Protein backbone atom coordinates (compact mmCIF):
# COMPACT_ATOMS: atom_id res chain seq x y z
CA UNK A 1 0.00 0.00 0.00
CA UNK A 2 1.37 3.37 -0.96
CA UNK A 3 -0.10 5.39 1.91
CA UNK A 4 3.25 6.99 2.75
CA UNK A 5 3.96 8.07 -0.81
CA UNK A 6 0.40 9.35 -1.14
CA UNK A 7 0.65 11.35 2.07
CA UNK A 8 3.94 12.83 0.86
CA UNK A 9 2.48 13.90 -2.47
CA UNK A 10 -0.68 15.22 -0.78
CA UNK A 11 1.50 17.78 1.01
CA UNK A 12 1.30 19.86 -2.16
CA UNK A 13 -2.48 19.86 -1.90
CA UNK A 14 -2.34 20.80 1.77
CA UNK A 15 -0.05 23.74 0.99
CA UNK A 16 -2.31 24.80 -1.88
CA UNK A 17 -5.40 24.83 0.34
CA UNK A 18 -3.73 26.87 3.07
CA UNK A 19 -2.45 29.32 0.46
CA UNK A 20 -5.93 29.53 -1.03
CA UNK A 21 -7.38 30.58 2.32
CA UNK A 22 -4.46 32.93 2.93
CA UNK A 23 -5.07 34.68 -0.39
CA UNK A 24 -8.71 35.25 0.57
CA UNK A 25 -7.52 37.96 2.95
CA UNK A 26 -7.72 40.52 0.14
CA UNK A 27 -10.12 40.79 -2.79
CA UNK A 28 -7.13 41.50 -5.00
CA UNK A 29 -5.56 38.04 -4.75
CA UNK A 30 -8.65 36.09 -3.74
CA UNK A 31 -9.37 34.75 -7.19
CA UNK A 32 -5.81 33.55 -7.67
CA UNK A 33 -6.10 31.82 -4.31
CA UNK A 34 -9.18 29.89 -5.35
CA UNK A 35 -7.45 28.82 -8.54
CA UNK A 36 -4.47 27.58 -6.53
CA UNK A 37 -6.91 25.66 -4.34
CA UNK A 38 -8.59 24.11 -7.38
CA UNK A 39 -5.19 23.10 -8.78
CA UNK A 40 -4.35 21.49 -5.43
CA UNK A 41 -7.59 19.55 -5.57
CA UNK A 42 -6.87 18.33 -9.09
CA UNK A 43 -3.41 17.24 -7.94
CA UNK A 44 -4.94 15.24 -5.08
CA UNK A 45 -7.30 13.48 -7.49
CA UNK A 46 -4.47 12.64 -9.91
CA UNK A 47 -2.26 11.32 -7.09
CA UNK A 48 -5.11 9.19 -5.73
CA UNK A 49 -5.86 7.71 -9.13
CA UNK A 50 -2.19 7.02 -9.82
CA UNK A 51 -1.24 5.49 -6.49
CA UNK A 52 -4.27 3.52 -5.45
CA UNK A 53 -4.43 0.32 -7.36
CA UNK A 54 -7.81 0.91 -8.83
CA UNK A 55 -8.77 -2.71 -9.20
CA UNK A 56 -12.23 -2.34 -10.58
CA UNK A 57 -14.79 0.21 -11.53
CA UNK A 58 -12.93 2.51 -13.92
CA UNK A 59 -16.05 3.09 -15.93
CA UNK A 60 -18.13 3.66 -12.85
CA UNK A 61 -15.59 6.18 -11.64
CA UNK A 62 -15.46 8.01 -14.96
CA UNK A 63 -19.24 8.11 -15.17
CA UNK A 64 -19.53 9.33 -11.57
CA UNK A 65 -17.01 12.11 -12.11
CA UNK A 66 -18.70 13.12 -15.33
CA UNK A 67 -22.19 13.26 -13.79
CA UNK A 68 -20.90 15.07 -10.70
CA UNK A 69 -19.02 17.62 -12.82
CA UNK A 70 -22.05 18.34 -14.96
CA UNK A 71 -24.21 18.85 -11.86
CA UNK A 72 -21.51 21.06 -10.32
CA UNK A 73 -20.84 23.22 -13.36
CA UNK A 74 -24.47 23.68 -14.34
CA UNK A 75 -25.51 24.44 -10.76
CA UNK A 76 -22.65 26.85 -10.19
CA UNK A 77 -23.09 28.72 -13.48
CA UNK A 78 -26.88 28.93 -13.42
CA UNK A 79 -27.39 30.03 -9.83
CA UNK A 80 -28.44 33.62 -9.23
CA UNK A 81 -26.28 35.55 -6.79
CA UNK A 82 -29.34 36.08 -4.58
CA UNK A 83 -29.68 32.30 -4.30
CA UNK A 84 -26.07 31.83 -3.19
CA UNK A 85 -26.95 30.66 0.36
CA UNK A 86 -29.08 27.82 -1.04
CA UNK A 87 -26.28 26.83 -3.39
CA UNK A 88 -23.73 26.76 -0.58
CA UNK A 89 -26.15 24.62 1.45
CA UNK A 90 -26.60 22.23 -1.45
CA UNK A 91 -22.89 21.76 -2.20
CA UNK A 92 -22.23 21.47 1.51
CA UNK A 93 -24.86 18.78 1.87
CA UNK A 94 -23.55 16.61 -0.95
CA UNK A 95 -20.05 16.73 0.58
CA UNK A 96 -21.43 15.51 3.90
CA UNK A 97 -23.42 12.82 2.15
CA UNK A 98 -20.29 11.63 0.34
CA UNK A 99 -18.38 11.42 3.64
CA UNK A 100 -21.14 9.31 5.22
CA UNK A 101 -21.32 6.95 2.22
CA UNK A 102 -17.53 6.50 2.15
CA UNK A 103 -17.47 5.31 5.76
CA UNK A 104 -20.38 3.02 5.02
CA UNK A 105 -18.52 1.39 2.11
CA UNK A 106 -15.29 1.14 4.13
CA UNK A 107 -17.19 -0.52 6.96
CA UNK A 108 -18.83 -2.89 4.51
CA UNK A 109 -15.35 -4.09 3.53
CA UNK A 110 -14.57 -4.89 7.17
CA UNK A 111 -17.92 -6.62 7.59
CA UNK A 112 -17.60 -8.66 4.39
CA UNK A 113 -14.19 -9.99 5.40
CA UNK A 114 -15.37 -10.71 8.94
CA UNK A 115 -12.63 -8.43 10.21
CA UNK A 116 -12.31 -6.30 13.30
CA UNK A 117 -12.73 -2.55 13.11
CA UNK A 118 -10.86 -1.58 16.29
CA UNK A 119 -11.78 1.19 18.70
CA UNK A 120 -9.86 4.01 17.00
CA UNK A 121 -11.15 3.34 13.53
CA UNK A 122 -14.58 2.59 14.93
CA UNK A 123 -14.90 6.04 16.51
CA UNK A 124 -13.79 7.73 13.29
CA UNK A 125 -16.24 5.65 11.26
CA UNK A 126 -19.16 6.45 13.56
CA UNK A 127 -18.28 10.14 13.58
CA UNK A 128 -17.96 10.59 9.84
CA UNK A 129 -21.03 8.43 9.12
CA UNK A 130 -23.32 10.24 11.56
CA UNK A 131 -22.04 13.80 11.21
CA UNK A 132 -21.87 13.51 7.42
CA UNK A 133 -25.42 12.23 7.32
CA UNK A 134 -26.73 14.97 9.65
CA UNK A 135 -24.98 17.55 7.51
CA UNK A 136 -26.46 16.12 4.32
CA UNK A 137 -30.06 16.01 5.52
CA UNK A 138 -29.83 19.28 7.46
CA UNK A 139 -28.39 21.09 4.45
CA UNK A 140 -31.15 19.78 2.22
CA UNK A 141 -33.79 21.16 4.61
CA UNK A 142 -31.89 24.46 4.82
CA UNK A 143 -31.85 24.52 1.02
CA UNK A 144 -35.59 23.81 0.97
CA UNK A 145 -36.32 26.58 3.46
CA UNK A 146 -34.29 29.19 1.58
CA UNK A 147 -35.69 28.08 -1.76
CA UNK A 148 -39.12 28.26 -0.11
CA UNK A 149 -39.89 24.61 -0.87
CA UNK A 150 -40.30 24.15 2.89
CA UNK A 151 -41.95 26.78 5.10
CA UNK A 152 -39.40 29.31 6.30
CA UNK A 153 -41.25 29.72 9.58
CA UNK A 154 -40.06 27.50 12.42
CA UNK A 155 -41.99 24.24 12.51
CA UNK A 156 -42.55 23.20 16.10
CA UNK A 157 -44.64 20.63 17.90
CA UNK A 158 -44.88 19.44 21.51
CA UNK A 159 -42.08 17.19 22.73
CA UNK A 160 -39.89 18.19 19.82
CA UNK A 161 -36.65 18.72 21.73
CA UNK A 162 -37.06 15.47 23.66
CA UNK A 163 -37.93 13.55 20.50
CA UNK A 164 -34.94 14.98 18.66
CA UNK A 165 -32.60 14.18 21.53
CA UNK A 166 -33.91 10.58 21.63
CA UNK A 167 -33.42 10.23 17.89
CA UNK A 168 -29.86 11.52 18.18
CA UNK A 169 -29.05 9.10 21.00
CA UNK A 170 -30.65 6.25 19.03
CA UNK A 171 -28.46 7.02 16.01
CA UNK A 172 -25.31 6.96 18.14
CA UNK A 173 -26.39 3.76 19.91
CA UNK A 174 -27.10 2.00 16.62
CA UNK A 175 -23.72 3.02 15.22
CA UNK A 176 -21.83 1.96 18.34
CA UNK A 177 -23.55 -1.43 18.41
CA UNK A 178 -22.77 -1.75 14.68
CA UNK A 179 -19.07 -1.23 15.42
CA UNK A 180 -19.09 -3.71 18.29
CA UNK A 181 -20.91 -6.47 16.43
CA UNK A 182 -19.49 -5.63 12.95
CA UNK A 183 -23.02 -5.57 11.60
CA UNK A 184 -23.28 -3.66 8.33
CA UNK A 185 -27.00 -3.04 8.33
CA UNK A 186 -26.93 -1.51 11.78
CA UNK A 187 -24.56 1.21 10.51
CA UNK A 188 -26.82 1.78 7.52
CA UNK A 189 -29.76 2.17 9.94
CA UNK A 190 -27.70 4.55 12.09
CA UNK A 191 -26.98 6.71 9.05
CA UNK A 192 -30.69 6.74 8.27
CA UNK A 193 -31.52 7.78 11.84
CA UNK A 194 -28.88 10.52 11.67
CA UNK A 195 -30.39 11.81 8.43
CA UNK A 196 -33.81 11.92 10.08
CA UNK A 197 -32.25 13.79 12.98
CA UNK A 198 -30.73 16.26 10.51
CA UNK A 199 -34.22 16.96 9.16
CA UNK A 200 -35.95 17.45 12.50
CA UNK A 201 -32.98 19.44 13.82
CA UNK A 202 -33.26 22.12 11.12
CA UNK A 203 -37.07 22.21 10.74
CA UNK A 204 -37.74 24.26 13.92
CA UNK A 205 -35.16 26.90 12.94
CA UNK A 206 -36.53 30.00 11.19
CA UNK A 207 -35.53 31.03 7.67
CA UNK A 208 -33.73 34.13 8.95
CA UNK A 209 -31.38 31.93 10.94
CA UNK A 210 -30.57 29.57 8.06
CA UNK A 211 -27.17 31.23 7.35
CA UNK A 212 -25.99 30.32 10.85
CA UNK A 213 -27.21 26.78 10.32
CA UNK A 214 -25.50 26.48 6.94
CA UNK A 215 -22.27 27.76 8.40
CA UNK A 216 -22.54 25.28 11.26
CA UNK A 217 -23.30 22.42 8.88
CA UNK A 218 -20.31 23.55 6.81
CA UNK A 219 -18.15 23.00 9.89
CA UNK A 220 -19.87 19.62 10.39
CA UNK A 221 -19.05 18.47 6.86
CA UNK A 222 -15.46 19.59 7.36
CA UNK A 223 -15.19 17.56 10.56
CA UNK A 224 -16.85 14.57 8.88
CA UNK A 225 -14.23 14.81 6.11
CA UNK A 226 -11.48 14.95 8.75
CA UNK A 227 -12.95 11.84 10.42
CA UNK A 228 -12.97 10.11 7.04
CA UNK A 229 -9.27 10.96 6.94
CA UNK A 230 -8.80 9.00 10.18
CA UNK A 231 -10.68 6.04 8.67
CA UNK A 232 -8.60 6.03 5.47
CA UNK A 233 -5.35 7.27 7.10
CA UNK A 234 -5.20 10.17 4.72
CA UNK A 235 -3.54 13.31 6.07
CA UNK A 236 -4.90 15.55 3.33
CA UNK A 237 -8.45 14.72 4.41
CA UNK A 238 -7.61 15.40 8.05
CA UNK A 239 -6.02 18.79 7.35
CA UNK A 240 -8.56 19.98 4.77
CA UNK A 241 -11.49 18.82 6.85
CA UNK A 242 -10.16 20.57 9.93
CA UNK A 243 -9.48 23.82 8.02
CA UNK A 244 -13.12 23.83 6.97
CA UNK A 245 -14.18 22.89 10.49
CA UNK A 246 -12.26 25.87 11.86
CA UNK A 247 -13.66 28.22 9.26
CA UNK A 248 -17.24 27.10 9.79
CA UNK A 249 -16.91 27.39 13.56
CA UNK A 250 -15.44 30.88 13.32
CA UNK A 251 -18.12 32.12 10.91
CA UNK A 252 -20.91 30.60 12.99
CA UNK A 253 -19.64 32.39 16.08
CA UNK A 254 -19.23 35.70 14.21
CA UNK A 255 -22.76 35.50 12.87
CA UNK A 256 -24.34 34.63 16.18
CA UNK A 257 -22.46 37.57 17.71
CA UNK A 258 -23.63 39.94 14.95
CA UNK A 259 -27.19 39.00 15.85
CA UNK A 260 -26.40 39.20 19.56
CA UNK A 261 -27.70 35.70 20.18
CA UNK A 262 -26.14 32.58 21.51
CA UNK A 263 -25.76 29.62 19.20
CA UNK A 264 -28.08 27.64 21.48
CA UNK A 265 -30.74 30.32 21.07
CA UNK A 266 -30.41 30.17 17.28
CA UNK A 267 -30.61 26.39 17.17
CA UNK A 268 -33.29 25.76 19.78
CA UNK A 269 -35.06 29.12 20.18
CA UNK A 270 -37.45 28.88 17.18
CA UNK A 271 -36.80 32.61 16.61
CA UNK A 272 -39.36 34.40 14.48
CA UNK A 273 -42.21 32.05 15.34
CA UNK A 274 -44.22 34.37 17.54
CA UNK A 275 -44.62 37.71 15.87
CA UNK A 276 -45.20 39.65 19.08
CA UNK A 277 -43.90 43.16 18.67
CA UNK A 278 -43.38 44.91 21.99
CA UNK A 279 -41.87 47.84 20.09
CA UNK A 280 -45.06 48.31 18.08
CA UNK A 281 -47.16 49.28 21.05
CA UNK A 282 -44.44 51.54 22.41
CA UNK A 283 -43.70 53.31 19.15
CA UNK A 284 -47.29 53.62 17.97
CA UNK A 285 -48.52 54.50 21.43
CA UNK A 286 -46.80 57.85 21.88
CA UNK A 287 -48.82 59.26 19.02
CA UNK A 288 -45.71 59.30 16.87
CA UNK A 289 -46.55 59.39 13.22
CA UNK A 290 -44.83 58.45 10.05
CA UNK A 291 -43.86 61.05 7.46
CA UNK A 292 -44.36 59.93 3.90
CA UNK A 293 -42.57 61.61 1.02
CA UNK A 294 -42.20 61.61 -2.77
CA UNK A 295 -39.33 60.68 -5.07
CA UNK A 296 -38.96 64.32 -6.18
CA UNK A 297 -38.39 65.55 -2.63
CA UNK A 298 -35.87 62.82 -1.94
CA UNK A 299 -34.06 63.60 -5.21
CA UNK A 300 -33.56 67.20 -4.11
CA UNK A 301 -32.23 66.06 -0.72
CA UNK A 302 -29.79 63.69 -2.39
CA UNK A 303 -28.59 66.02 -5.12
CA UNK A 304 -27.68 68.78 -2.66
CA UNK A 305 -26.15 66.53 -0.02
CA UNK A 306 -22.43 66.36 0.64
CA UNK A 307 -22.45 62.78 1.78
CA UNK A 308 -25.01 60.07 1.11
CA UNK A 309 -24.82 56.59 2.61
CA UNK A 310 -26.85 53.74 1.17
CA UNK A 311 -27.88 50.95 3.52
CA UNK A 312 -28.84 48.00 1.35
CA UNK A 313 -30.77 45.05 2.75
CA UNK A 314 -32.04 41.82 1.39
CA UNK A 315 -35.21 43.54 0.12
CA UNK A 316 -32.99 45.32 -2.39
CA UNK A 317 -31.71 42.04 -3.75
CA UNK A 318 -35.20 40.56 -3.93
CA UNK A 319 -36.34 43.52 -6.01
CA UNK A 320 -33.21 43.13 -8.18
CA UNK A 321 -32.51 46.82 -7.66
CA UNK A 322 -28.73 46.60 -7.12
CA UNK A 323 -27.97 47.93 -10.60
CA UNK A 324 -30.39 50.82 -10.15
CA UNK A 325 -28.82 51.78 -6.84
CA UNK A 326 -25.40 51.80 -8.48
CA UNK A 327 -26.75 53.97 -11.32
CA UNK A 328 -28.23 56.41 -8.83
CA UNK A 329 -24.98 56.44 -6.88
CA UNK A 330 -22.95 57.21 -9.99
CA UNK A 331 -25.33 59.99 -10.92
CA UNK A 332 -24.87 61.52 -7.47
CA UNK A 333 -21.09 61.11 -7.68
CA UNK A 334 -21.13 63.07 -10.93
CA UNK A 335 -22.84 65.84 -8.98
CA UNK A 336 -20.00 65.76 -6.46
CA UNK A 337 -21.78 63.85 -3.72
CA UNK A 338 -19.63 61.52 -1.59
CA UNK A 339 -21.44 58.17 -1.83
CA UNK A 340 -20.83 55.18 0.40
CA UNK A 341 -22.48 51.90 1.18
CA UNK A 342 -22.89 50.68 4.75
CA UNK A 343 -22.95 46.90 5.00
CA UNK A 344 -24.19 45.23 8.17
CA UNK A 345 -22.47 41.92 8.93
CA UNK A 346 -25.73 40.01 8.51
CA UNK A 347 -27.09 42.01 5.57
CA UNK A 348 -28.39 39.61 2.97
CA UNK A 349 -28.83 35.98 3.74
CA UNK A 350 -25.33 34.93 4.66
CA UNK A 351 -22.27 36.81 5.92
CA UNK A 352 -20.81 38.91 3.14
CA UNK A 353 -23.75 38.15 0.85
CA UNK A 354 -24.58 41.82 0.28
CA UNK A 355 -21.01 42.50 -0.82
CA UNK A 356 -21.31 39.83 -3.48
CA UNK A 357 -24.65 41.20 -4.67
CA UNK A 358 -23.25 44.73 -4.95
CA UNK A 359 -20.07 43.49 -6.62
CA UNK A 360 -22.31 41.82 -9.17
CA UNK A 361 -23.87 45.22 -9.81
CA UNK A 362 -20.36 46.60 -10.38
CA UNK A 363 -20.16 48.59 -7.17
CA UNK A 364 -16.43 48.96 -6.40
CA UNK A 365 -15.58 47.17 -3.17
CA UNK A 366 -13.72 50.19 -1.77
CA UNK A 367 -17.07 52.02 -1.53
CA UNK A 368 -18.43 49.26 0.72
CA UNK A 369 -17.99 50.08 4.41
CA UNK A 370 -18.26 47.66 7.28
CA UNK A 371 -20.41 48.53 10.29
CA UNK A 372 -17.56 49.48 12.65
CA UNK A 373 -15.98 51.78 10.06
CA UNK A 374 -19.14 53.59 9.00
CA UNK A 375 -20.88 53.99 12.36
CA UNK A 376 -18.72 56.92 13.57
CA UNK A 377 -19.35 58.64 10.21
CA UNK A 378 -23.14 58.84 10.45
CA UNK A 379 -23.27 62.17 12.37
CA UNK A 380 -21.41 63.76 9.42
CA UNK A 381 -23.74 62.16 6.89
CA UNK A 382 -26.44 64.32 5.31
CA UNK A 383 -28.73 61.62 4.00
CA UNK A 384 -28.94 57.90 4.68
CA UNK A 385 -31.00 55.89 2.23
CA UNK A 386 -32.23 52.61 3.69
CA UNK A 387 -33.30 50.25 0.92
CA UNK A 388 -34.87 46.95 1.87
CA UNK A 389 -33.16 46.81 5.25
CA UNK A 390 -35.05 46.91 8.52
CA UNK A 391 -33.84 45.10 11.63
CA UNK A 392 -30.18 46.06 11.08
CA UNK A 393 -31.07 49.78 11.42
CA UNK A 394 -33.56 49.35 14.26
CA UNK A 395 -32.57 51.64 17.15
CA UNK A 396 -34.66 49.44 19.48
CA UNK A 397 -31.60 47.18 19.50
CA UNK A 398 -29.78 50.01 21.27
CA UNK A 399 -32.37 51.56 23.54
CA UNK A 400 -35.31 49.20 24.18
CA UNK A 401 -34.23 46.52 26.65
CA UNK A 402 -37.54 44.69 26.10
CA UNK A 403 -37.01 44.24 22.38
CA UNK A 404 -36.14 40.78 21.06
CA UNK A 405 -33.20 42.27 19.17
CA UNK A 406 -31.95 44.38 22.09
CA UNK A 407 -28.16 44.35 22.18
CA UNK A 408 -27.72 43.43 18.53
CA UNK A 409 -25.08 45.66 16.92
CA UNK A 410 -26.79 47.92 14.39
CA UNK A 411 -25.94 50.62 11.87
CA UNK A 412 -26.56 53.91 13.72
CA UNK A 413 -28.38 55.57 10.83
CA UNK A 414 -30.60 57.50 13.24
CA UNK A 415 -27.53 59.60 14.15
CA UNK A 416 -27.30 61.05 10.66
CA UNK A 417 -28.98 64.31 9.58
CA UNK A 418 -31.76 62.76 7.49
CA UNK A 419 -32.99 59.25 6.89
CA UNK A 420 -34.94 58.07 3.88
CA UNK A 421 -36.49 54.64 4.22
CA UNK A 422 -37.63 52.99 1.02
CA UNK A 423 -40.14 50.31 1.85
CA UNK A 424 -43.23 48.85 0.31
CA UNK A 425 -45.41 49.16 3.39
CA UNK A 426 -45.19 49.45 7.15
CA UNK A 427 -45.01 45.66 7.58
CA UNK A 428 -42.34 44.44 10.00
CA UNK A 429 -39.13 42.79 8.82
CA UNK A 430 -37.97 39.20 8.69
CA UNK A 431 -37.73 38.97 12.47
CA UNK A 432 -41.22 40.44 12.88
CA UNK A 433 -40.23 43.42 15.04
CA UNK A 434 -41.52 46.98 14.70
CA UNK A 435 -38.97 49.71 13.98
CA UNK A 436 -38.99 53.03 15.92
CA UNK A 437 -36.70 54.50 13.26
CA UNK A 438 -39.75 54.91 11.01
CA UNK A 439 -41.35 57.21 13.60
CA UNK A 440 -38.23 59.31 14.11
CA UNK A 441 -38.83 62.99 13.19
CA UNK A 442 -35.69 62.86 11.01
CA UNK A 443 -37.05 59.99 8.98
CA UNK A 444 -39.13 60.19 5.84
CA UNK A 445 -40.70 57.13 4.25
CA UNK A 446 -40.83 56.54 0.52
CA UNK A 447 -43.43 53.83 0.09
CA UNK A 448 -42.57 51.95 -3.06
CA UNK A 449 -40.97 48.84 -4.44
CA UNK A 450 -37.17 49.21 -4.22
CA UNK A 451 -36.63 48.96 -7.96
CA UNK A 452 -39.48 51.31 -8.89
CA UNK A 453 -38.32 53.80 -6.27
CA UNK A 454 -34.76 53.77 -7.60
CA UNK A 455 -35.95 54.31 -11.17
CA UNK A 456 -38.10 57.26 -10.08
CA UNK A 457 -35.21 58.69 -8.05
CA UNK A 458 -32.82 58.42 -11.01
CA UNK A 459 -35.28 60.28 -13.24
CA UNK A 460 -35.89 62.90 -10.55
CA UNK A 461 -32.19 63.46 -9.81
CA UNK A 462 -31.49 63.90 -13.51
CA UNK A 463 -34.03 66.72 -13.67
CA UNK A 464 -32.84 68.50 -10.51
Amino acid at each position, binding site marked *: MSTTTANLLYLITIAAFILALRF*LSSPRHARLGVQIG*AAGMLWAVVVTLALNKVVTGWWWMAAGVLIGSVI*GVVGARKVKMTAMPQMVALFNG*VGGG*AAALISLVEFHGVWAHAGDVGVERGIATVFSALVGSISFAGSMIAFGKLQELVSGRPITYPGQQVGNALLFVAAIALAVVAMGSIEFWLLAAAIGAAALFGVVFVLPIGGADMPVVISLLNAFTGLAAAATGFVLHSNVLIV*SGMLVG*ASGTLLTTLMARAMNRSLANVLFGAFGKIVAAPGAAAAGGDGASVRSTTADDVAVMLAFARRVVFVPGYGLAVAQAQHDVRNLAELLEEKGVDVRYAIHPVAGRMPGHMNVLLAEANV*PYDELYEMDTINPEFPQTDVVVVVGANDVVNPAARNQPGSPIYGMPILDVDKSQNVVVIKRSMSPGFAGIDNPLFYDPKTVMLFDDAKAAMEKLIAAVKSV
Partner: protein
Amino acid sequence: MSYQLVTELTILVLAAFVGFEVISKVPTLLHTPLMSGTNAIHGIVIVGAIIVMGTPHPGLFMRLVSFVAVILATANVVGGFVVTDRMLEMFRKRDEPRKEAQ
Protein backbone atom coordinates in the same frame (compact mmCIF):
# COMPACT_ATOMS: atom_id res chain seq x y z
CA MET B 1 -3.35 4.17 21.24
CA SER B 2 -1.31 3.66 18.09
CA TYR B 3 1.59 5.88 17.07
CA GLN B 4 -0.19 6.63 13.81
CA LEU B 5 -3.28 7.90 15.63
CA VAL B 6 -1.18 10.22 17.80
CA THR B 7 0.50 11.62 14.70
CA GLU B 8 -2.85 12.12 13.02
CA LEU B 9 -4.29 13.83 16.08
CA THR B 10 -1.26 16.14 16.15
CA ILE B 11 -1.90 17.03 12.52
CA LEU B 12 -5.57 17.66 13.33
CA VAL B 13 -4.83 20.03 16.19
CA LEU B 14 -2.19 21.94 14.23
CA ALA B 15 -4.57 22.23 11.27
CA ALA B 16 -7.22 23.68 13.59
CA PHE B 17 -4.81 26.41 14.72
CA VAL B 18 -3.69 27.16 11.17
CA GLY B 19 -7.34 27.29 10.14
CA PHE B 20 -8.36 29.77 12.84
CA GLU B 21 -5.28 31.88 12.18
CA VAL B 22 -5.74 32.10 8.42
CA ILE B 23 -9.53 32.47 8.42
CA SER B 24 -9.55 35.25 11.01
CA LYS B 25 -7.64 37.39 8.48
CA VAL B 26 -10.40 37.12 5.88
CA PRO B 27 -12.40 40.39 5.78
CA THR B 28 -16.22 40.31 6.13
CA LEU B 29 -16.30 41.60 2.57
CA LEU B 30 -15.26 38.13 1.42
CA HIS B 31 -17.14 35.94 3.88
CA THR B 32 -19.53 34.51 1.30
CA PRO B 33 -16.71 33.47 -1.07
CA LEU B 34 -14.90 32.14 2.00
CA MET B 35 -17.86 29.98 2.88
CA SER B 36 -18.25 28.59 -0.61
CA GLY B 37 -14.47 28.24 -0.99
CA THR B 38 -14.12 26.18 2.19
CA ASN B 39 -17.13 24.28 0.93
CA ALA B 40 -15.14 23.34 -2.14
CA ILE B 41 -12.16 22.36 0.04
CA HIS B 42 -14.15 19.79 2.00
CA GLY B 43 -14.86 18.29 -1.39
CA ILE B 44 -11.49 16.62 -0.74
CA VAL B 45 -13.66 13.67 0.31
CA ILE B 46 -13.47 12.94 -3.42
CA VAL B 47 -10.14 11.29 -2.57
CA GLY B 48 -11.98 8.93 -0.25
CA ALA B 49 -14.70 8.35 -2.82
CA ILE B 50 -12.11 7.38 -5.44
CA ILE B 51 -10.41 5.00 -3.01
CA VAL B 52 -13.63 3.17 -2.10
CA MET B 53 -14.82 3.12 -5.70
CA GLY B 54 -11.54 1.53 -6.76
CA THR B 55 -11.49 -1.32 -4.23
CA PRO B 56 -13.39 -4.43 -5.27
CA HIS B 57 -16.71 -4.99 -3.54
CA PRO B 58 -18.86 -8.03 -3.49
CA GLY B 59 -22.24 -7.17 -4.90
CA LEU B 60 -23.73 -4.39 -6.91
CA PHE B 61 -25.18 -2.50 -3.95
CA MET B 62 -21.85 -1.34 -2.53
CA ARG B 63 -20.67 -0.40 -5.97
CA LEU B 64 -23.76 1.78 -6.36
CA VAL B 65 -23.16 3.40 -2.98
CA SER B 66 -19.55 4.19 -3.96
CA PHE B 67 -20.77 5.47 -7.29
CA VAL B 68 -23.17 7.88 -5.56
CA ALA B 69 -20.34 8.98 -3.26
CA VAL B 70 -18.19 9.80 -6.31
CA ILE B 71 -21.01 11.81 -7.87
CA LEU B 72 -21.72 13.75 -4.68
CA ALA B 73 -18.06 14.48 -3.97
CA THR B 74 -17.38 15.60 -7.55
CA ALA B 75 -20.42 17.88 -7.54
CA ASN B 76 -19.13 19.33 -4.26
CA VAL B 77 -15.64 20.00 -5.64
CA VAL B 78 -16.54 21.27 -9.09
CA GLY B 79 -19.58 23.27 -8.04
CA GLY B 80 -17.78 24.77 -5.06
CA PHE B 81 -14.77 26.00 -6.99
CA VAL B 82 -16.71 27.24 -10.02
CA VAL B 83 -19.20 29.23 -7.97
CA THR B 84 -16.47 30.75 -5.78
CA ASP B 85 -14.46 31.78 -8.81
CA ARG B 86 -17.58 33.25 -10.37
CA MET B 87 -18.20 35.39 -7.30
CA LEU B 88 -14.64 36.62 -6.92
CA GLU B 89 -14.50 37.55 -10.58
CA MET B 90 -17.02 40.30 -9.85
CA PHE B 91 -15.08 42.17 -7.18
CA ARG B 92 -13.34 45.26 -8.55
CA LYS B 93 -11.87 48.47 -7.21
CA ARG B 94 -13.12 51.94 -8.05
CA ASP B 95 -10.51 52.70 -10.71
CA GLU B 96 -10.43 49.27 -12.30
CA PRO B 97 -12.14 48.92 -15.66
CA ARG B 98 -15.69 47.73 -15.33
CA LYS B 99 -16.71 44.27 -16.38
CA GLU B 100 -20.36 44.53 -17.33
CA ALA B 101 -22.22 41.66 -15.75
CA GLN B 102 -25.22 42.00 -17.95
